[in-house]
């Protein structure tokens, strides 16, 4: 199976506390990789070093190399910490979903279209179409198609999370990072998201943090355990 | 340079210009006040009387005036503010607390000069007839008016720090059978001492920095006040009364000494508040 992401000798510290010690791992393409482990071990941080979101946090330090095999680069991996490689292009290819859904206080439509606006895409027909497709992919279209102008904040928790998935999908990302995406949802909403993840596997590589072992068993292809700053494959 | 970098530079420039204005005010005061600070005038400046006709430009009575008026107003305003804050944050029923809070916020919108104007025509005659002493323009008059002016500052900060006390502490006291006064005395007040000190210092700064009230109702006489019923001039009022445009006279230079003194006093208060918050942040309370 083709490797999508490779972490080589990753060490990460926060203040003078070493969080990861020499982590080495490879995540396969079009697979769902789950990362499990006790809380407070830095599972979420591990995700943010794949899309460089940790860089805004003061007093942090990272050593090591992360490579991502992006589409259309003839098999040469991209070193994501290459100083010539801008973080925002990386984050368009590596989407992320947070523990609690984080729709912006705008309409449903504008939320989903927001990444396109960031990328400078103005063609209205194209934007409309992409929004529709993304909402369909996120199993949300039927529920919101009549009220795309409503404020996204009035959606239920599960709907908000699927909205965030749609918003991440609209960029057609190659990798999707999920940080306990169902932890704030009830069991029904949780089930919908799990089904959704299994279909998304077709189009992107998924790395997911979870502490529900039964959930991991249901969806993950490979599982890694993070404990004491080390990542081991189970 | 990229666009993003250019904008970051521009923002930094804006912050630098703003920061430099603070420094440049200080430098201006020092340079322009220098002739009177050097040349042997220094001790005379701080301790001498104001008597331009005799070539003596001491600002002692203005310093005394500023200090007495501001501390006296704090003396009036502190109990008033503490009592009101306790009512708002702890004792009053919801409706009353809200109304009182609105009133206090509303007070911050009243222009100083309006206080001064009403003070002249309402409070000054009352003081004059009550104490039968002088014109009624006195330290006491100014302090009373200032007390009303600075109370909202204190009350808003007090109430804010009372409300920041974690609810769990209050529940703990209640579970042990404590009354709301017990909560106040044993938890709320001890927890919010940094807020109380901050409020006090800020209010003192406002009182010391205010010009219009003392200019309008304190009488502005340059003599050293003997009692709080005497007329007096503050440092701020002294600057406000510039008449001479003779920029190079020593009389004029003395104003910069007043300005410098006010600058330093308020800066010290800022440093006190900042260090207080730093320590409170580190140590809890």
């Amino acid at each position, binding site marked *: 199976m083709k490797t999508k992401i490779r972490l080589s000798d990753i060490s990460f510290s926060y203040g003078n506390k070493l969080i990861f010690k020499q982590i080495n791992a490879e995540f396969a393409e079009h697979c769902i990789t789950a990362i499990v482990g006790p809380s407070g071990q830095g599972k979420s941080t591990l995700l943010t070093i794949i899309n460089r979101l940790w860089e805004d946090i003061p007093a942090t330090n990272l050593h090591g190399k992360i490579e991502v095999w992006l589409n259309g680069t003839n098999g040469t991996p991209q070193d994501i910490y290459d100083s010539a490689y801008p973080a925002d292009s990386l984050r368009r290819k590596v989407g992320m979903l947070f523990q609690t859904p984080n729709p912006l206080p705008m309409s449903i439509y504008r939320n989903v279209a927001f990444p396109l606006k960031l990328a400078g895409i103005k063609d209205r027909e194209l934007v409309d179409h992409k929004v529709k497709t993304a909402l369909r992919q996120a199993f949300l279209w039927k529920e919101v198609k*009549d009220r795309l102008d409503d404020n996204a904040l009035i959606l239920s928790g599960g709907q908000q999370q699927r909205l965030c998935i749609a918003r991440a999908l609209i960029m057609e990302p190659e990798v999707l990072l999920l940080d306990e995406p169902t932890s704030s949802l009830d069991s029904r909403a949780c089930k919908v998201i799990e089904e959704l993840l299994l279909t998304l596997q077709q189009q992107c590589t998924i790395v997911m943090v979870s502490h529900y072992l039964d959930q991991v068993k249901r969806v993950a292809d490979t599982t890694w355990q993070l404990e004491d700053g080390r990542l081991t494959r189970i | 340079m990229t666009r993003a970098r250019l904008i970051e530079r521009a923002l930094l420039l804006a912050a630098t210009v703003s920061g430099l204005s603070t420094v440049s005010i200080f430098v201006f005061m020092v340079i322009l006040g220098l002739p009177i600070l050097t040349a042997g005038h220094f001790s005379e400046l701080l301790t001498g009387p104001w008597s331009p006709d005799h070539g003596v430009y001491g600002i002692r009575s203005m310093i005394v005036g500023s200090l007495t008026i501001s501390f006296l107003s704090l003396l009036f305003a502190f109990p008033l503010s503490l009592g009101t804050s306790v009512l708002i944050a702890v004792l009053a029923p919801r409706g009353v607390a809200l109304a009182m809070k609105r009133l206090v916020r509303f007070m911050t919108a009243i222009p100083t000069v309006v206080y001064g104007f009403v003070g002249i025509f309402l409070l000054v005659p009352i003081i004059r007839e009550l104490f039968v002493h002088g014109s009624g323009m006195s330290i006491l008059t100014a302090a009373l008016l200032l007390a009303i002016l600075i109370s909202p500052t204190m009350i808003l900060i007090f109430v804010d720090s009372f409300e920041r006390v974690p609810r769990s502490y209050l529940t703990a006291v209640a579970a042990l059978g404590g009354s709301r006064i017990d909560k106040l005395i044993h938890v709320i007040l001890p927890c919010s001492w940094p807020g109380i000190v901050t409020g006090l210092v800020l209010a003192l700064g406002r009182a010391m920095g205010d010009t219009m009230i003392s200019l309008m109702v304190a009488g502005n006489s340059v003599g050293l006040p003997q009692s709080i019923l005497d007329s007096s001039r503050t440092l701020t009022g002294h600057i406000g009364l510039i008449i001479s445009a003779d920029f190079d006279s020593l009389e004029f230079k003395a104003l910069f000494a007043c300005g410098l003194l006010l600058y330093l006093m308020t800066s010290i208060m800022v440093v006190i508040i900042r260090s207080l918050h730093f320590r409170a942040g580190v140590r809890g309370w």
Partner: protein
Amino acid sequence: MVMKRVKESIIVVLSWLCSLLLAGSVATIIGYLLFKGLATINLALIFGDTAPLEAIFLGRQVFNGLLPAMVGTLALVLLALIFAIPLGVAAGIYMAEYGKGRLKGWFSLFFDILASIPSIVVGLFGFSVAVFLHHNLSERIYPCLLIAALSLAFLVLPYIIRTTQVALESIPVTIRQTAPALGATKLQNISHVLLPHALSAMMSGIVLAMGRCAEDTAVIMLTGVVASAGMPRSIFAGFEALPFYIYYISAQYSDSRELASGYGAAIILLIICIMLFGLAFYIKARFELTFTARSGDKRRISQRIMKAPDRRKKSLKVNFQTEQSGQGTLL
């Protein structure tokens, strides 16, 4: 136990007394002002002997009226804000989003000090700068509207910086990270998400700063305000202003008519300040968290999208790489 109950009752009573005393004082002050001054509020107070329409549209001089002072105050406030808002907002954004470490600490200290400097000292600074320029640059520079507005701008600058900074910094991390996780650059995050989010708090801070400019007397009395200048004609000339007029009347009134106009002016200034103050709170309460879609055109987008024919997925595949070139034009 009885002692304790007595003690508690005393505290309660004292607390109520303090509040009543404070409320009573304010009511007395406002009541006295209204009692003495309400009768003087009429058109003649503002326009004097000149007909209002002629004063406004023909620019006829107004004598014995408050119009020049009111217009002077308006000009002063607007001019001061023109200087203070861009500088203050930019510095505030720097403090919240870019500044770090020691430099940020120093800036923060300086802004705190600037905020605490008594306004009369800022006025003295403005005055001496004007005199300095008069001696060294041009004989034509005197304390004037421009100098007063610049000095006032310094007075409210730290206020605008702090409001901007706090408004930005209090945005929760979840919202702060949303746009970057979707590929936004730092600038895009600031302009598309953070600033819109902070806008209402910033606006209400700016309106409060307007109130401070309108009511301040100490700064302008050293930097160019005069008792009678007529309508402001040039930013290089002296001007009238409401708060100074009130101060001037209180010390120099010659007859009961002038005194009455002082009461009128005080009421007008009070109303202006209260309205600005109310506006600030209205903005804050009304627009909290609502840079959302306009709700008037409900279902418009839904209908548009549903009507559109489904295109095949193939045509949808647009390469992001090529579209990124347009990104620079976004800001």
